[in-house]
């Protein structure tokens, strides 16, 4: 009896051990490989320098690295690792390293890690002052130890780096006061030394959805605009835009659309915002609300006070996801992913009249395995699709059909 029991335990343990071992090695298979190299990256974020250099920050193998390309992504410089050890990076679907490059070639970078076993996040930042040759030691963006995730960075005309993120510090106060705390706070800070140090973190808005990326752009010099999934009355997680009065003063929140998505959940699916040279806000988002379901686009010509009627994006049967919108001088471009059961494609549409009308979408890239969100980036002359894929590696694809 004892022998059978022991044998049974060993056999069970062997079987389950093998299954777990297999899971340990395969679960991370969102990545093509486990090294910190670009080929193994799951998330890659681009930024163009003023001189046309493409900078890329990526996460791979628990590390964050940066490299540059002088030939539009065909080849990259030797990567510089900005992490000195393998970290428990925030690998959530909407997490990614953020990078901005200022006029002098200074590079500011930020990303999130999980800093404990309860998956409390922490936003870390660094800066390179020598053209990406080296990066300063990583520092937390705020001294507060409550959970922070979903940072966003944007560069003002005068070189100020503006950072916004979701921060749960006030849940402690709410708990002490016996109050219910929902979601997270939208916090912000700015740096007037190119991202070497950030000022005091301040609250812009309490009660926002805690698990979606933010969209961030400058509406005008000194006036950042943020789009986020807000929690409206009754637990409705619809989108809102906030335009700051100045770099330190949050503005009112303005609802993008009344989708009526009442849900107590983590959608893991944040919005995108770009501000055109005309001042038009272009936004794209996902909802599963009572009023509408799917991906939508709208624009505002009055700093978010009113938005156009939401326009549906993509084919409903193809699970359209991860919209990204970017406005340039002559056109506004949107991309998103669709999935047909086997293959993921990136769909693209262009507007040449500041968002009034859009050309029929077309497929500009596809892949047969998992992929990062499609991103758009412009060097002022051309717009590119930046897309990290597991099967095919990193792709920077010029968007054709531009006027």
């Amino acid at each position, binding site marked *: 009896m004892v022998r059978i029991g022991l044998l049974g335990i060993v056999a069970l343990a062997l079987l*389950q051990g093998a299954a777990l071992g297999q899971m*340990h090695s395969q679960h991370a*298979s969102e990545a093509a490989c486990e090294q910190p190299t670009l080929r193994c990256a799951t998330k890659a974020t681009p930024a163009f320098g003023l001189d046309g250099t493409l900078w890329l920050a990526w996460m791979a193998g628990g590390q964050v690295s940066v490299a540059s390309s002088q030939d539009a992504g065909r080849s990259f410089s030797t990567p510089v690792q900005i992490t000195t050890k393998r970290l428990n990076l925030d690998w959530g*679907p909407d997490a990614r390293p953020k990078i901005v490059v200022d006029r002098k070639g200074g590079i500011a970078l930020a990303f999130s890690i999980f800093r404990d076993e309860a998956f409390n996040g922490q936003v870390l930042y660094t800066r390179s002052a020598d053209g990406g040759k080296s990066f300063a030691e990583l520092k937390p963006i705020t001294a507060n130890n409550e959970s922070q995730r979903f940072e966003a960075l944007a560069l003002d005309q005068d070189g100020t780096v503006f950072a916004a993120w979701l921060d749960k510090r006030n849940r402690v106060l709410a708990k002490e006061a016996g109050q219910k705390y929902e979601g997270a706070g939208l916090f912000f800070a700015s740096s007037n030394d190119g991202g070497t140090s950030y000022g005091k973190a301040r609250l812009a808005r309490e009660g926002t959805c805690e698990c979606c990326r933010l969209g961030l752009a400058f509406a005008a010099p000194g006036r950042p605009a943020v789009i986020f999934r807000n929690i409206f009355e009754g637990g409705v997680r619809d989108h809102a835009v906030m335009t700051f009065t100045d770099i330190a003063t949050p503005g009112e929140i303005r609802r993008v659309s009344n989708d009526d998505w009442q849900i107590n959940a983590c959608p893991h699916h944040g919005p995108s915002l770009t501000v055109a040279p005309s001042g038009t806000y272009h936004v794209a988002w996902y909802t599963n609300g009572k009023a509408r379901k799917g991906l939508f686009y709208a624009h505002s010509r009055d700093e978010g006070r009113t938005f156009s009627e939401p326009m549906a994006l993509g084919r409903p049967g193809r*699970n359209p996801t991860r919209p990204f919108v970017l406005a340039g001088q002559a056109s506004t471009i949107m991309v998103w992913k669709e999935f047909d059961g*086997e293959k993921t494609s990136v769909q693209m549409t262009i507007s040449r009249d500041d968002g009034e009308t859009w050309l029929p979408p077309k497929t500009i890239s596809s892949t047969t395995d998992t992929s990062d969100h499609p991103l758009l980036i412009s060097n002022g002359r051309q717009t590119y699709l930046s897309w990290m894929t597991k099967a095919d590696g990193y792709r920077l694809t010029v968007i054709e059909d531009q006027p």
Partner: protein
Amino acid sequence: MRRRSAGLLGLGILIVSAAGLGAQPALKPFERGTWQSVLRGHAGRPTLVHFWGVTCGPCKVELPQLGQFAKDHPGIDVVTISADLVPNLPAATQSMLDKAGLSSTENFIFNDGFVERLRFEIDPAWQGDIPRTMLISRDGTITTIEGSAEMGDLEKWTAQQLSTH
């Protein structure tokens, strides 16, 4: 080498847990085709399938409620599927299930990097938001609850299911 040490670690953990607790079900990998086998495996039985993840705030609140529900309703098959997209989580996942009283239910963890495909098999319209609960009745009818489920709604559905037995 990584695979081997991970396997040995898993083996060690399981020897300890198997010796201490008897044959506790392990987390099963949820891969391509698993959804159909879950449906087949529970066909004809009222089944609650709960999608959740360790990094999801509302899930942390709901999971212990679900543990109590499973305890109170042995006539309902409860299946949990960790659909979080953060890798290397079997230990944290198991720990949260244990604390929620869900050690002995059938528990899966997403184990395919191509999550779009996994989700598409379950529900082509699902974009990955969690928590999410699918109530599968005896005749195979699926009712999906997006976000945290109201325990009252689960009780109501359960009463309907058990009364038609």
